[in-house]
């Protein structure tokens, strides 16, 4: 039993009339609801829509921008699974592969179903698989869950390599139909950009809806202390399962869109490099924010390209850069951006105060 004396301001009887009571017991809401997340999404999308076409001065640059958008979608899914639900899943790239194959299979010439149905089927199959895996491994935590999901990835890759009717010869499907929406085909990378930006916008809005809901705080509680969360009435297991399903579905969506864009998909398209890469995106961008994987994906896609000028040392510089970012910025690039905006706000506030003092004499 601990008997150390600590400062515990248990209120005395005469102090019970708290400031909140004196203020007329006004409604107090959690600070997350006071943030302008919808505006941030709109601002972000407008900025990307305005700036990206100017950056995309070549085919390779346009390719990278499209790749960033498609990775960002998978990254947000992984944010839900790993950062919100606290599930150490190692199957996000497998979900992307499954989504790609499913969508290619549904829309292939023999079936001839539209692109949207292909995307929907990719989302459905990855959700279903995540549900089954989540139920089977519901009691597995942390590394054990990672091992379970890694096993699913390994089994799945083997199945794809041998199931020619679904995933093609040697796990490769080619001639996947280009994306087509309401009669409009997205054939070029520049056109695909708008499709992907639209999809990312919807995903970001869905993410904001989760951020601004009790679902987020229940998920965080379940992640941080499963037992205490359950004791306080949180449906911890259900929340973790749902977030795993939703995150995997975004993996399926991302894989499906990539397959239609690239025109092919194989078991190597979303390989082990990307499996680790998705972790990197989240940690580089910042685990504590839904914007982390979006910024992290940009960093992940752009930096190798930027460093390609110093070909000989690019791997060393890239590795060192990753190390510096992870060590120096534990809250990731989003944390850096938040600190920067706080400094700017403080400066503005100080300047305003100075103006008032000057005017007041």
């Amino acid at each position, binding site marked *: *039993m*601990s*008997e*150390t*004396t*600590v*400062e*515990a*301001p*248990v*209120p*005395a*009887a005469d*102090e*019970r009339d*708290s*400031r*909140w*009571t004196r203020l007329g*017991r006004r*409604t*107090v*809401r*959690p*600070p997350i609801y006071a943030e302008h997340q919808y505006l941030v999404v709109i601002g972000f999308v407008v900025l990307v829509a305005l700036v990206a076409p100017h950056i995309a001065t070549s085919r390779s640059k346009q390719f990278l921008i499209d790749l960033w958008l498609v990775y960002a979608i998978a990254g947000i899914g992984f944010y839900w699974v790993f950062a919100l639900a606290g599930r150490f899943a190692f199957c996000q790239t497998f979900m992307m592969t499954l989504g790609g194959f499913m969508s290619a299979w549904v829309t292939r010439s023999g079936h001839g179903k539209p692109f949207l149905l292909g995307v929907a089927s990719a989302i459905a199959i990855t959700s279903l698989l995540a549900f089954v895996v989540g139920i089977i491994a519901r009691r597995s935590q942390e590394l054990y869950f990672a091992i379970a999901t890694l096993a699913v990835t390994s089994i799945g890759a083997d199945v794809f390599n041998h199931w020619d009717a679904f995933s093609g010869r040697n796990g490769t499907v080619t001639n996947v139909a280009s994306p087509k929406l309401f009669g409009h085909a997205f054939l070029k990378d520049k056109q695909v950009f708008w499709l992907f930006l639209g999809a990312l916008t919807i995903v970001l809005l*869905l993410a904001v*809806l*989760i951020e*601004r*809901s*009790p*679902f*987020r*705080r*229940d998920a*965080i*509680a379940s992640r*941080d*202390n499963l*037992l*205490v*969360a*359950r*004791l*306080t*009435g*949180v*449906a*911890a297991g*259900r*929340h973790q399962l*749902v977030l795993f399903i*939703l995150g995997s579905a975004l993996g399926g969506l991302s894989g499906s869109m990539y397959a239609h864009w690239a025109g092919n998909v194989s078991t190597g398209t979303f390989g082990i490099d990307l499996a680790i890469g998705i972790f990197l995106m989240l940690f580089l961008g910042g685990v504590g924010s839904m914007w982390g994987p979006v910024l992290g994906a940009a960093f992940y896609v752009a930096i190798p390209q930027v460093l390609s000028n110093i070909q000989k040392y690019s791997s060393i510089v890239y590795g060192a850069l990753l190390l510096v970012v992870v060590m120096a910025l534990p809250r990731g690039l989003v944390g850096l951006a938040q600190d920067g905006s706080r400094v700017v706000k403080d400066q503005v506030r100080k300047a305003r105060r100075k103006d008032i003092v000057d005017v007041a004499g």
Partner: protein
Amino acid sequence: MLQAEQISVSFGGVRAVSEVSLTLDTGELLGLVGPNGSGKTTFLNAICGVVEAQGQLTVDGARVPLGRPRAAWRAGIARVFQAPQTFEALTCLENVLLSSADAKMRGVGGAWIARPVMWTRERRRWARAMEALDVVGLAPLATSPAAMLSYGQRRLLELARALAGDPKVLLLDEPSAGLNDPETAALADLLRRVREGLSLLLIDHKVDFLDMLCDRIVVLELGVVIAEGTPQDVWRDKRVMSAYLGVPDDAAH
């Protein structure tokens, strides 16, 4: 209100709690005491579903399955831990909101589909959570991160969280641990205020604190009930004295 019958808990070959039965009436404050290792906390863990246990538990006549924490919460059992278990990544208000008795519209359906219903319920939950924070004196800190609180404040936050769930039975595991005398007295005052309509099961080692609050005390030793009664009767019981002070050595006679 709460009836525990023949509750037993074993860890491997060790029986930590052995066929303990006790009844807690509505509005009663029952103390559960015993030397270290007597099975008090394990009994609490069994009641709130933290550990697997054998026996039968009912709250308000309804049977509560053992070994399932959320089922215990649904039955109206809330728990305050010896070391405060708050969620540091959340604000004080969010910590309290977790235990809201209104469990509906808290999943993805509320977030994505039925948002107007979710908002209506959420506003109600905020108000109830603020009331609970106000009772323990933490309302001014509602929007502060729980990580900023002192040890004593975290203890109060945990109590507010338990109260916000409108429980029928509140289990308190050494709530006065780490508090000095004035703070312990203030905590006793707070518990007296909140106990109306609530049954409390209190584990503690401070005799004055127990005497101030408890209607009845049950004493455990080695996982078995050795005495039960009013505080005065229990402290006079020879088995209780020997459990705490030891049995006089035969050689001394």
